[in-house]
């Protein structure tokens, strides 16, 4: 498997702290201080209760594969990297997030596999969170 690209990630200004965390190698989950809900994706307020009193807290970085697809026809800058895995990982904190599972044999991946977050960096300072099986 070819190394996957690490594209620049444009984001809304309310997610600046989240993406600064990714650049620093830390995955921060937004949690509402009003109702306790974990808010994925981060947006600076809580859609569960309407509160703006949300905080970012470090996540465990551990999770389970909820679903996945082995892509054989990559798009854009992923063309030429096939086969690679796009997955939903269910974080131990609850949210199911889209990501890549890297570093293993795509054909041996199964739903329910335990995975751990890794950070990958591009040449121009871009950074992404991905997962490897444990």
């Amino acid at each position, binding site marked *: 498997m070819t190394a*996957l*690209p690490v*594209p620049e*990630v*444009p*984001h*809304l*200004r*309310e*997610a600046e702290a989240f*993406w600064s965390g990714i650049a620093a190698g830390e995955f921060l989950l937004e949690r509402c201080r009003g109702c306790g*809900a*974990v*808010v*994925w*994706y981060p*947006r*600076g*307020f809580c*859609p*569960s209760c*309407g509160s703006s009193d949300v905080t970012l807290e470090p996540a465990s970085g551990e999770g389970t594969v*909820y*679903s*996945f*697809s*082995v*892509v*054989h*026809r*990559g*798009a*854009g*800058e*992923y063309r030429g*990297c096939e086969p*690679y895995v*796009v*997955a*939903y990982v269910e*974080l131990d904190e*609850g*949210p*199911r*997030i*889209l*990501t*890549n599972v890297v570093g293993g044999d795509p054909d041996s991946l199964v*739903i329910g596999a335990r995975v751990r977050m890794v950070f990958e960096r591009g040449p121009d300072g871009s950074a*992404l969170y991905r997962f490897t099986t444990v």
Partner: protein
Amino acid sequence: MTEADRGAYIAGVFEHPRREIPELSTPRIHAEVAFGALADAGLDRSDIDGYLCDGSQNFRPVAFGVLSMAEYLGLECTYLDSTETGGSAPVVQVAHAAAAIAAGKCQAALVTSAGRPRSAPTSFERGSPEGSYEDVWGMSGAVTGYALSAQRHMHEFGTTSAQLAEVKVAASLHAQHNPNAFLRDVVSVEEVLESPMVSSPLHRLDCCVVTDGGGACIVVSGAVARKLSRPCVRVMGAGEAVRHSDLGRLSLTSTAAAVSGPMAFAAAGVSPRDIDYVSLYDSFTITVIETIEDLGFCEKGEGGRFVMDGALVAPHGRLPFNTDGGGMCNNHPGNRGGITKVVEAVRQLRSEAFPAVQVPDCGLALVNGTGGNIGTRMASATLILGRGDA
């Protein structure tokens, strides 16, 4: 019902007090004015079940403005409107909201409008709020989202690739009779399974065709309809709903048809067993499997087994579907196949389908549209159409 019971009223308004807002994104301004109007009306956000905003955010890469915004605001809606008429859009949308309320489609509809042209736009000013978390992983167009749903459906319910393939096979059996169909060759389950894998577990032949084209539909009042000589089709019931990622608690194995379907059935006063023909949005084979379940034609998880014995094949299957060949084989114009679903249902109810696939005595049809992506966020719309004069 008195005259006043059918009316609609404006309960709350809010104007953002500021005229220069450099530090907030456009979606966040929508959120602020939404909360302001709710406070003015004395309503809670959970009271809101209709949402209207225009598409001027022009979110990239796909302008699902109102769908992205419904998720962003955490709204559970059964009525959406993204009418785009420039500056008059919010006015039009207030009228639409009033009509929707009079029709019982929603009880409290929110209209928002926002933008920040004074402040220099950032490079991502027109990006959708969820895009940062979805557009960077190499999803192979729409197919990977549906593939994630299919994989999970297989895991939870034992659905197989061969069962998914039955959807394509049935569509191809219909398309052979349609001289206009993009693909007219009958295919077998084996041919579907042997076609190239695009994004596992979906093969090339699990995907709809890519075609140019379009379609149209004219809806008229009963008074107008009575003056027409062509046989008319009654709109007996309708429903629409959204299923989004819900703060990361998304379900990959159900669609919003589980909400829009029952709404449409209730409005029409019929049930799934009364339906003679279905037009089901068939962007991918898994779309049809999940939709059959969500509409109540079988239990959740049984869709794969339901289609195994030719149930979808016209004219004599238990649930004849997409007799034009559907998006699988006939047409998916502009990557948006909804209009073709309406057109074929009307043909069936007028007994104007191709003879080999005309459902005998077709009196009641269901149309289901699936927009967005079932692997992330999607909106369903269900129509129940009946044969007969107005």
